[in-house]
């Protein structure tokens, strides 16, 4: 009898999950929505680790610009120091939205930037010369950065260690030094 119970339970759960689709999921359009943005496009969303912040890319004055908003209010926080690095691409946020990583552009060259919103410090990263950055993902604690790009005609993903460059942004209530086994909410 016991032989039947476990596989049947897994099958039942699979059927329930697969068959019932996503009924009951709560959805919302990120505010302000497309209409409030004047019918503009909004792309490349990135949420902070616990959802208090949403970064996305919108077009402003003809340039792709990172928009940083508190959630769920949609209140926008200006990021003046990033202006000169437009167009912006591929934003990524740390746990509490302290760090904003993105691909920007300076004098026609694509650059990876990390903004520390706590101190206002903007860090352009010096990457290998032959690596053309395209897309990135900042680890929520800010200690590592995964970067997708093209190097010598080949698409690749590389991971960089930032632990010596920035202090960690930890989930709320988690002390520095306890990240070895983080307990998630």
């Amino acid at each position: 009898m016991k032989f039947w119970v476990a596989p049947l339970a897994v099958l039942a759960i699979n059927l329930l999950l697969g068959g019932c689709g996503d009924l009951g999921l709560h959805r919302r359009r990120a505010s302000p929505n497309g209409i409030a943005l004047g019918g503009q496009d909004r792309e490349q969303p990135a949420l902070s680790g616990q959802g208090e912040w949403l970064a996305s890319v919108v077009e402003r004055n003809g340039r792709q610009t990172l928009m940083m908003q508190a959630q769920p209010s949609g209140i926008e926080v200006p990021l003046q120091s990033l202006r000169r690095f437009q167009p912006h691409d591929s934003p990524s946020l740390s746990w509490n939205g302290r760090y904003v990583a993105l691909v920007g552009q300076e004098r026609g060259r694509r650059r990876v930037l990390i903004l520390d919103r706590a101190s206002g410090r903007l860090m352009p990263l010096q990457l290998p010369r032959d690596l053309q950055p395209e897309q990135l993902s900042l680890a929520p604690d800010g200690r590592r950065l995964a970067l997708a790009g093209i190097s010598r005609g080949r698409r690749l993903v590389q991971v960089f260690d930032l632990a010596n460059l920035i202090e960690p942004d930890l989930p709320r209530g988690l002390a520095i030094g306890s990240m070895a086994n983080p307990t998630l909410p």
Partner: protein
Amino acid sequence: MMKGSGKRQGLRLGLLAGGLGALTSLNGCMGTVPQPVFPLDRRLEELGPSRAPSLVGPWLALISNRGGRDQVVLLNLEDQRPVPLPGLNRPDAQPLSVGVEAKGERLAVVRQLEGRTELLLYRRRLMSSQIITMNPQGVPRRVMLRADGRELAVEVSRDGHWQVDLIELP
């Protein structure tokens, strides 16, 4: 005698300070230098051409091309080995975007399959995929799973515009 020695020492200190200052300025112009994580990079190279990374805690999800076919790969950075994802990578599907949560249990994937583009939530332990339909109707392109696993941010093409949908997960 004492005066001359003091001057030399002052000169040395001045040169040292100047040198440090020049180095700092140079670093400021060139940018901060991050270090690649070795030997992870070698491991990533072995995966073949890769894109669309999602790095959360000890997990790195990405799309890599092996034998001419794109597939979702989940690496545990502690042992730098791919984790099995049974049932996720279908030979007739083309993954476009992937996101992983900090626990590494759930992955969100946008893929093209049989001429349509769909968003799905994959659970590793159950080896199951749940299709999440766009409502109102739209075509997903990019997905991001919040690190705590409680919400999806989806880039959706709808009514001729790109929009962002936020979908809470149970």
